């Protein structure tokens, strides 16, 4: 099905899913000590994937983890996923690099600024 009405409906559905994902992320960030990866394109791509998973699979599963199709087995991978805190503590970022530590964001932010000169 690739008629304009279907495409429009898909785009509208994805836009709604994106807004919902973004609101959830904002709420989570307000109460956590984490930041988003300091690159708008990276965040936009990851949010799009989260939104697609929400739209197509009913939950915002991590974009970088395989979805087995078993709701119980897949529950730990709903973003923010169960392992993200340990990953951030170890690496400075979660698996897909959506959430990062403040130190990582500051360090990366300085590198980004130098590139933009």
């Amino acid at each position: 099905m690739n008629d304009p009405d279907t495409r429009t409906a898909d785009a509208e559905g994805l836009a709604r899913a994106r807004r919902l994902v973004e609101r959830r992320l904002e709420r989570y960030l307000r109460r956590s000590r984490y930041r988003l990866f300091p690159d708008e394109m990276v965040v936009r791509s990851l949010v799009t994937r989260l939104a697609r998973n929400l739209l197509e699979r009913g939950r915002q599963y991590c974009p970088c983890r395989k979805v087995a199709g078993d709701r119980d087995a897949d529950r730990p991978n709903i973003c923010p996923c169960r392992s993200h805190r340990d990953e951030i503590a170890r690496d400075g970022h979660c698996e897909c690099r959506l959430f990062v530590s403040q130190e990582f964001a500051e360090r990366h932010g300085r590198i980004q600024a130098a590139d933009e000169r």
Partner: protein
Amino acid sequence: MALAIGDRAPAFNLPGVDGRNYALADFAGKRALAIIWSCNHCPMVVRYEDRMVELQRDYADRGVQVVAINSNDVARYPDDSFERMVERAREKRFNFPYLRDETQQVARAYGPAVTPEVFLFDAERKLVYHGRIDDNPDDPSAVRRRDLREALDALLAGAPIATAETNAVGCGVKWK
């Protein structure tokens, strides 16, 4: 720590899915070498595989070589086994070498953080571009910045590369 722009490509000698071994020196005649850290399972990589094949197809006659390397820990991610790499390469008709870095020594030398992540080297094997393939893993038709292609076009034209580093989107390299 990843290679910095201007660093030389570290040597490697790795088995490929076609049964032969590939060393960095084997590509000595190529004007540009794009080494892309990749794997079998990452949903982001899966979205880029066709674009990697297209890239090799589009630039092969201009002396460019794409090479994909999989360094993921197979113990935790059995989908990244060599056997699965062979299947994947056949299924997606890879037209470039797909190499297995079992010990992760090559990954530690280059320093990728995620898959897919590109290290583009010039004819002297100095790093000239590092980062993403383009700015939209999700929808190839909605790509606005074809970063790797832009870097290649500049390199082959002898022009400066406007953006030498970008942040790649993908799954973390699975270290042992």
